[in-house]
């Protein structure tokens, strides 16, 4: 999730605190609390599976890219940094496959990209 969940939760805490002040216009209080509620719901939805999905995806990407390694640091920030590194590698691999005309390789990469969007799918997704 971008922005990252911890930064969002910190900001939402500030918003709720602001809304507790007596001089906030009612419409703005209602609007801020409504969107805060929606964001908290999404944060709750991704929380439990976040680490497991990143580990699963990092394994899949290493296999696809022929890389060794493992996720020893299970903090979400560390898993996400490794995921970013691997996804950058995937872009380079896809460009190389396109230039080489390697259709099989391209299809394997596309299949993983489809699975990646399934892992990130939210209950409120429009697509």
């Amino acid at each position: 999730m971008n922005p990252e969940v911890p930064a969002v939760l910190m900001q939402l805490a500030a918003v709720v605190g602001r809304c507790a002040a007596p001089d906030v216009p009612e419409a703005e209080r209602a609007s801020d609390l409504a969107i805060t509620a929606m964001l908290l719901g999404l944060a709750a939805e991704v929380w439990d599976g976040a680490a497991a999905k990143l580990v699963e995806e990092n394994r899949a990407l290493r296999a696809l890219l022929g890389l060794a390694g493992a996720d020893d640091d299970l903090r979400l920030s560390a898993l996400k940094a490794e995921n970013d590194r691997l996804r950058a590698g995937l872009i380079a691999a896809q460009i190389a496959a396109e230039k080489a005309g390697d259709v099989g390789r391209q299809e394997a990469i596309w299949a993983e990209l489809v699975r990646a969007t399934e892992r990130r799918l939210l209950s409120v997704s429009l697509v």
Partner: protein
Amino acid sequence: MTHPLAPRVAAYLQSRMPGASEVAVESMERISGGASRETYRFVARWREGAATRERRMILRRDPPASLIDTERRVEFAAYRAFFGSSVPVPEMLWLEEDCGPLDHPFFIAAEVAGFQAAPQLLFSGLYDAVLPTLARRKWTILGEIAKADPFALGLDKVMAAPVPEACWRRELDHWEAVLDRDEAEPLPITRAAIRWLRANPPPPAQKISVVHGDYRTGNFLFDEAGEIHGVLDWEMAHLGDPLEDLAWGLNPVWAFGRGLAGGLLAQAEAVAIWERASGLTADPAALHWWILFNCVKGQGIWVGSAAAFNTGGNREPIMIYPAWWLLNAQERAMLKVMGRL
């Protein structure tokens, strides 16, 4: 309780209405949404001689950092160009680019009051009987925008007019640069889409049109009869290929999960309505290019929204929601358009 901005807005109105006295701003409230501009509604009251006047107005003020970086002068000019035409828009009253009066540039418009805009309400079931009527109006109005002559409207004085061959490249260059600047994480699907777009460019534009830039369900005011009373959110208006505008509303995220163009009707019907109204044709291959392009553009907007939050430029919750809600959905939309989902 008086809104903190109300006295300052009243002072501004007083400065712009020399014939008025005792100007007051009442019932001021911020309207939810509006990630690219802060939007407020209010009632202005004043005296003119012995008479008391009253008018409902809208204030659109630039936020500290926005989901979209645009010139309010361009948006103001686009509204003005279409006011009184077959494209319904609110009347623009004042444009203020000086930061003095309200800390940021803004404009004030007449409020088109009493109508709805929210897709959630439109698709709640209450409006089902009028959705076909609304759909016809939606794509007819978009066709009218495409048909309009931007040079006769004088819009080429505030918006750069590309040559027909250059429309696609200018837009793609712009949104790729936005992604280069703002993305916080690698986006393999978006980057693959950009490579495909560059390798398979569309034909030159049939004409140079006004492109609203964000014409979708949710950005117009509707009533219970399915009539449209105001086309809003012109902040991304520019001159370019009219297919770009048609294709934005066909971006799959704007189907709102209903499997229909704009959540309203089959894509082929929407395109046919637009073709009749505009007098233009929508070549299927060119339209496909522009739909995929608009998926990239959408991603640029959602990534920009996250960047505005991440960099501290705007920490309002409204900047988070588009990114969380739409970044993955937009990549799935690209997969659909590319036939991979």
